[in-house]
């Protein structure tokens, strides 16, 4: 009889420890699930801010209607990215904190229409001390090497090309052109869009992975052991991830200062440029109306007087919605 009691008590203690263990792991799981989503959103916002800071050079009033002329200057992207991350985590924006965040930026690539930058550690002298700083490398072109040693660098948003043809010894002749046809007619090189895209994707993936592998050997971060994989153009019949417009991709992972557990979760923030549709105010029959760009016929467009960023702004300035234009599908 006594043994039964002892047995029952031990069983009770075991069950209690199971329940306590379950409670502990439930609490951890809730926290981890929240933190993963939270990190995801932070990296999203940080990448967006970083991308916007790259576009800030140049007169965007004109270039939004012509994506080719957008000026991209990626100098401030990484510092803006780290600022947003630090502010979201309620960390102070001190040098030490921002340098510490370098450890969690696994890789990044900034894609523009005629080249790409890869994020890497570069030696830098700060206050006389030789340290490594996370910066964009040199811009690399989208070049394909053809038989005979010719290399052609392509621009992805238009059909511009630059050809370097070896001409005896170590000399090269340089040719440029505006259309792929000219390349074929003058130099016999066929520029295949699918080939170019494949090469571009392959180069970018290889470069980013090479950087990540090299950085992995310099410090102990488990997340770097796996590569960042960008699926190539051939993933679907329609093509996945075609690089057509300026884009920014940054991968963050292995975060261990958020919450009580290390997140081996990796998240990638990516942004690309899209044409923004503005609200245009115009005068018709003495009344001031507004409608979206692309809905207004060209003859009326010539009389446009104001440009707004949103319908609220237009309404505040006293313009009325033009119901006939605005209800058209774009």
């Amino acid at each position, binding site marked *: 009889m006594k043994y039964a009691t002892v047995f029952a008590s031990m069983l009770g203690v075991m069950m209690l420890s199971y329940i306590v263990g379950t409670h502990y792991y439930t609490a951890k799981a809730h926290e981890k699930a929240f933190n993963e989503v939270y990190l995801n959103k932070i990296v999203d*916002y940080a990448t967006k*801010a970083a991308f916007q800071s790259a576009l*800030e050079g140049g007169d*965007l009033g004109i270039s939004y209607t012509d994506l080719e002329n957008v000026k991209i200057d990626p100098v401030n992207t990484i510092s803006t990215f780290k600022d947003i991350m630090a502010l979201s985590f*309620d960390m102070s924006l001190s040098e030490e904190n921002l340098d510490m965040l370098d450890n969690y930026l696994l890789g990044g690539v900034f894609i523009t229409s005629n080249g790409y930058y890869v994020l890497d550690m570069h030696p830098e002298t700060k206050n006389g001390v030789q340290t490594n700083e996370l910066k964009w490398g040199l811009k690399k072109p989208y070049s394909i090497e053809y038989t005979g040693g010719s290399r052609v660098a392509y621009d992805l948003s238009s059909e511009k090309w630059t050809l370097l043809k070896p001409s005896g010894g170590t000399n090269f002749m340089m040719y440029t052109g505006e259309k792929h046809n000219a390349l074929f007619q003058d130099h016999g090189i066929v520029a295949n869009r699918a080939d170019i895209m494949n090469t571009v994707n392959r180069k970018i993936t290889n470069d980013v992975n090479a950087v990540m592998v090299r950085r992995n050997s310099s410090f102990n971060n488990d997340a770097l052991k796996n590569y960042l994989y960008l699926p190539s153009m051939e993933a679907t019949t329609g093509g996945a991830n075609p690089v057509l417009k300026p884009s920014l991709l940054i991968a963050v992972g292995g975060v261990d200062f958020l919450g009580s557990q290390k997140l081996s979760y990796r998240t990638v923030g990516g942004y690309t440029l899209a044409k923004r549709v503005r609200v245009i105010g115009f005068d018709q029959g003495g009344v001031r109306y507004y409608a979206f760009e692309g809905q207004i016929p060209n003859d009326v467009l010539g009389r446009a007087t104001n440009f707004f960023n949103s319908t609220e702004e237009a309404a505040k300035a006293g313009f009325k919605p033009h119901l006939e234009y605005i209800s058209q599908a774009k």
Partner: protein
Amino acid sequence: MFDYPAKVFSILLIFMMCALSPFLSAYMESEALSNRLALNEVEMFLDKVTDKATITQADLDDLYLAIAATGGIYDVEVKRLIRLSTKLPDDSVRTLYLSQDYIGETMKSGDLVKVTVTDIGLTPAKRLKWYVLRLDEGKFHFSLTASVGR
């Protein structure tokens, strides 16, 4: 007679296993849900406000109402940070953020909006943990920052 401690102990054990634990699990789950909902609401607010580049009282009221509707009691603080760049003596440029008023103003591109949400209520899970275990895991809080874009 000498059996009392064992009997009391086993009753306590039964109570904790069969009554408290399920309660605690259920309360923790609802607390986690309201935290997650609060995060979603803050994200929607930031998306709206950074696209418009203005923060009106109506936006703030919407945010406060949505966060109150999650079921928890949260304190929400919305800040606008403007970016200042200064040149240091060693010719490097240092960028700082300064908190400024935002009601009735149009924010410039590059300004940041920071929302901090702190849990100031006593959720049932916290209360239970405190009364039974004297365990206090601190306030739940998070911040989210977004930059105003074009």
